[in-house]
């Protein structure tokens, strides 16, 4: 999505942009790699070759050796904002010539649609949403404003809805339910969001879905919830607001998970978790600690 943009930027520009004070030298930054934060310093593995560095810090690391210092209560957030504004470039909002967009779709202002993506009948896409490459969206679907849907995601995939007929053969019931995705939702690469037979499948505002996540038909993902890679949400699940799911966890069908719950890595949730907050881990998932 983003491409690195090399621009000369002064430490005082960074401070002015962040509304913070600069101490030390007002040095010219040729690259974002000349910026450090406490988390970056802990992670290591950062390119060398910069004589002078700018440190954005909450005071948790030694400042000696840095030519310029900006003190901040939230250095990582500040760094993210600086990278976005000054060092990251986003391809223009256009519909790629290889994309297929139904004449019965409604596309908002400033929407980007990447190569080989398919936007079907009855799809509505809000302003400033970015659909990357090889994305397929089947209608009916309403996607809000300022969303990001990454490469290879499938939205409105026909749900896994089979019923046995009189002879015991599996009969696929048409899945016609609406997909409703709120504003500022992020859906990762190769993730799938299934359509239900009648019911809505819903992802609320500001939910962030990582790569390789499956959301089963008729499920609801609450606002600001975060689902990381490999998560499987079965059908008819209800996740509350601010739920966090660690990688490769699974939630059984028709389960309710209350607001603010954290589900640990690889956990399998098989029963309702009705009490808000708390950390649940293991198979089957059990309460590790209360909120």
């Amino acid at each position, binding site marked *: 999505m983003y491409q690195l943009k090399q621009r000369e930027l002064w430490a005082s520009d960074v401070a002015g942009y962040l509304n913070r004070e600069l101490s030390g030298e007002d040095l010219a930054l040729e690259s974002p790699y000349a910026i450090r934060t406490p988390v970056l310093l802990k992670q290591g593995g950062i390119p060398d070759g910069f004589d002078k560095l700018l440190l954005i810090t909450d005071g948790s690391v030694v400042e000696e050796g840095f030519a310029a210092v900006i003190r901040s209560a939230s250095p990582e957030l500040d760094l993210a904002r600086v990278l976005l504004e000054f060092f990251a470039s986003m391809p223009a909002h256009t519909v790629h010539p290889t994309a297929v967009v139904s004449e019965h779709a409604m596309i908002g202002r*400033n929407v980007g649609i990447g190569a080989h993506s398919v936007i079907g009948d009855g799809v509505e896409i809000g302003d400033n949403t970015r659909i990357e490459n090889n994305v397929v969206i089947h209608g009916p679907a309403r996607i809000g404003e300022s969303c990001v849907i990454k490469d290879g995601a499938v939205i409105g995939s026909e749900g896994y809805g089979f019923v046995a007929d009189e002879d015991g053969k599996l009969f696929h019931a048409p899945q016609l339910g609406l997909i409703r995705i709120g504003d500022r939702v992020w859906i990762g690469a190769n993730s799938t969001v299934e359509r239900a037979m009648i019911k809505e499948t819903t992802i609320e505002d500001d939910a962030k879905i990582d790569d390789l996540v499956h959301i089963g038909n008729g499920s609801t993902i609450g606002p600001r919830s975060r689902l990381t890679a490999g998560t499987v949400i079965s059908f008819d699940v209800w996740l509350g607001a601010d739920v966090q799911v660690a990688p490769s966890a699974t939630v059984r069908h028709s389960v309710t998970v209350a607001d603010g719950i954290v589900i640990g890595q690889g956990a399998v949730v098989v029963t309702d978790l009705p009490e808000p907050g708390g950390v649940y881990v293991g198979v089957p998932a059990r309460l590790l600690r209360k909120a």
Partner: protein
Amino acid sequence: MPVTHFPEKITKFLRRRLVELKEEHGEDSWQYRGIALQYFRDPREDVDAPEENIKHYEAGVTAGELPPGLERLYRRSLVIEPTLVCIAHCRYCLRSNYAKHTLSEQQLVDVARYCGSGANQDFLNEVLITGGDPLLIPNRIEFLLNALIEQAPNIRIVRLATRIPTQDPDRIDQDVLRVFQNKPSLRFEMATQVNSPAEFCPETEEAFRKVRALGVKIYSQNVLLKGVNDDSAVLVDLYDRMRLNDIEAHYLFHSVPMRGTHHLRTSVDTGLKLANGLTSCGRISGRAKPMFAAMTDIGKITFYQGTIVDRRDGKLLLQSEYRLEDRLAWNPSWDLPESAQVDSEGRLQVWYLDGAD
């Protein structure tokens, strides 16, 4: 008092351009001086001089009933300053003494709501987004414009003030150009400032071309600066180059009496003489002629016959058509500056410090 708070800051592009001009024309050439004097810190900035202004005017920038980052001097238009950060420091900057704020997304939403609130819906139809240089932060400007579209549909004209095309033309990239795109409800104009013909070169002309290609009208508000463009031939060349680049001539400003700018300010009489020469010399088309104006404590005043009503102690009393009651009607927090007075017909007059030749 020295202007040490306002350090020299020159982009890599301008540094390279200055080296080229020095090698090609020499250090004393008008080409080299035309850029160098605008950006190099000069020891004469520290000399005691009558120019004492710290801010060019106060119009509710941080206080009063307006959200922060706003100035309201006119009924139908509003000045928004999303950031006061620039990529280069013009030595005659009007806002060098302002705190270097950058408005947050929430503050920009507040600004947009103000633009679309109450009586503003009926009168306010235009915003000037300036700074600082707003195109230094295109993502946040994109956010502001989207907020204006949503919250203030009465805003139909957006002017963006920038010197980036001549200070670092590579920055006019797809992220900056996106600001002007896909907003059919808005008419865009770019307000730039080119003070010397030496600022035109293939890179800067290409930057302007990319903006024009999006249907954006570009105009220039030039500043009359001693040693840069206080010469009839240089001004003719400047306005010719602007016209060739489809940049509309707007104001030619007399340099505002900011502290540290004495060496860059001509007298108003010299400005009037040069402006009259431009408009009546027959060497440039009437399509390319600017209006000579001063930025005073009460706002812009264009010089016409009768504008200067008195002269005293190096100051000129300038006549405006602004009315105090109008100003207070759309900005109740506005205070009549000490330099201003109301004439017998209710119009504002203001004392303005002249420059020296």
